[in-house]
């Protein structure tokens, strides 16, 4: 995106007057020094929480402690985090004009197209593996989602899925992640179990189900965020001179 760097901050932040820059420098210095001092005087870490995680890990349905914390012990945080991503993508759609993506994208580049034909199946395999490995090693929905998103962007760039940006089925894809998460949370509740409390036996399976839905949703959201930016929000048919982005 050339030419973006010189966007005047004038009407946004009338800051950056010399006085304020010095003030900001002083504040930053104070914060840095204060934090360094605080770090120095940190007491011995009371490792109560990690021991509890270690203790309850077998009951969490996954072997990777981080995934256990993310999707079982503190599942509400992940649900809300998914909501943040989806609402950012929804806001991006709300602010951009509906128009055909083709008008905005660069003409297909043969080298890129060839590379994409090789790259796509392998990328899908990697995404699937990342999703699966999350249960017992670093990985999971977000990593798989971002790889999928990269594939989606590559596809759009080679105009294979031209209408991706304005397509009708993007919003439902966005809704998939939180919807599945909520559905599982409500389904398991009741019979003495509270909201999002997975039965010990099927915890692993449920987590995988949630993670796969989340991966698709994250892929859709990240791709949408990128493509909305790329196309330039207001390229209505009337206002936009033909040709690629300026």
């Amino acid at each position: 995106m050339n030419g973006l760097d010189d966007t005047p901050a004038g009407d946004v932040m009338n800051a950056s007057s010399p006085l304020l820059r010095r003030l900001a420098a002083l504040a930053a210095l104070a914060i840095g020094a204060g934090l360094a001092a605080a770090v120095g005087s940190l007491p011995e870490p009371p490792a109560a929480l990690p021991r509890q995680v270690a203790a309850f890990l077998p009951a969490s349905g996954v072997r990777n402690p981080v995934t256990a914390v993310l999707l079982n012990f503190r599942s509400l945080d992940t649900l809300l985090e998914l909501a943040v991503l989806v609402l950012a993508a929804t806001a991006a759609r709300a602010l951009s004009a509906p128009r055909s993506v083709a008008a905005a994208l660069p003409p297909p580049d043969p080298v890129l197209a060839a590379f994409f034909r090789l790259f796509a199946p392998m990328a899908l395999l990697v995404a699937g593996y990342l999703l699966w490995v999350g249960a017992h090693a670093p990985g999971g929905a977000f990593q798989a989602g971002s790889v999928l998103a990269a594939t989606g962007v590559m596809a759009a760039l080679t105009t294979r899925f031209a209408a991706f940006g304005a397509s009708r089925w993007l919003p439902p894809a966005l809704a998939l992640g939180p919807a599945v998460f909520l559905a599982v949370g409500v389904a398991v509740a009741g019979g003495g179990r509270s909201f999002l409390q997975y039965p010990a036996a099927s915890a692993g399976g449920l987590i995988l189900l949630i993670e796969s839905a989340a991966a698709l949703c994250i892929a859709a959201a990240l791709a949408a965020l990128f493509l909305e930016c790329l196309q330039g929000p207001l390229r209505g048919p009337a206002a936009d001179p033909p040709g690629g982005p300026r």
Partner: protein
Amino acid sequence: MTGIETIAADVWIAAAVASPLAAACAMLVLRRWAAALGVLGSLVILGAVAGLAHQLLLLGPQQLVVGGWDPPLGIRLRADGPAVGMAGITGLIGLFVGIYATAYLRPLAASPPHGERLFWPLWMFLWAGLNALYLADDLFNLYVTLEVVGLASVGLAALARTAAAVAAALRYLLVSLLGSLAYLMGVALVYAATGTLELRGVAAAPVGYAALALMSAGLLMKTALFPLHGWLPPAHANAPAPVSALLSALVVKASFYVMLRLWFELFAPLIGPATAHLPGVLAAAAILWGSLQALAARRLKQLIAYSTVAQVGYLFLVFPLGLAGGSLRPAWGAVLFFILAHALAKAAVFLAAGNVLKAFGHDRIADLGGAVQQLPVSMFAFAVAGVSLVGLPPSGGFIAKWLLLAAALEAGRWGYAGVLVGGGLLATAYIFRFFSHAFRFVPESVLCCGLPRRMEGCALLLALGSMALGLAADPILALLQIGLPETGAAGAGGAP
């Protein structure tokens, strides 16, 4: 009344958080039915909060342990007086602003047809974030809910897609992110020092002060207290009317609510009289500065936005009054009641301003002659809500100002009593400055387009709500103080 209690309390809490999320997902799928789902969703959420309030009154504070893991490992959602009070006011305002939005957003020419339909999912996400924030009892969970609320508000603020609105939304986003980062750094420090993310863990001294400073600075930015208020007036003035109502009435208060929780629960032992007076001084400056800017505002929505900057100042008076009075007797009741009264009044005033904008085609105050003549219902709503904003009897605003004044006089804080009374005078000045133009008699009609009845009805109902709050203050004050560690006598008026 057998049916309701048998449903376990945590179902109501789960419903209060899950139903807005479910509604948002439904709206993303069924885009054509978004408006209908919006109003239906509001009713469902309001029902959930009402059930929760009923439980609270019957059985005292409720809680929901998410995922079955007891804190500090898992996350607990706590429903006590303040949380249910805030969720209730959010529900009430959400319902009326929703009904208003079904009429206001339809002919929004500037944005593409599907643009305004996406107002609804964004609003539902904001609502979910707000409800989750009120009920949260965990530091990092508060961070995520603050982010949900912040980003959804930025998306909504930019919905008008004019240059002014987008610039204001961008500035709001940058300030909000700065605040969130400072808050997150504070959370990291507290976790490093205490090893738990619970709201009750007491932070040790040196690290605690750093964490207190960082988290408070972050929250002050998001609450737009003077001198960090620069982003609020343009953002609230340029957003569409229903969005401005939501931002001013609810979103600004959510980050203040978090600050209340932190200062009165997590960091209470660290806060002496000196630290408590800092927000007090900033509050006085905010009231003065906000009111003066409102007096000089050219447009009606700017006037109301600056009024928010001033009214936020009143909120922060609770810290010097509660804590500096020696013992920890925070005037919880007074400040929470103020939040409720101000939320209703501010939402009504913004909706009335939206009506003026729709009917006159502009909101330049100087050219609004004959407004009272041609928009009697909206102007009556504006007047009634204005009375509550100013704090004149018999409104809810008056009771709130009275409770704060009683707390100030009881603690012998003369400066703050003067600020409270002076602030009321300044507020009268800028509210009635608008009326001196609106009451002007103009023979011929100047309206450019008619208004659906429900737009004026919603504004009027919210205004009458803020008035009714004043008459039914006792039960609400009682509800707001259920489950508080030490319900200050300050909340109970001047009885010695």
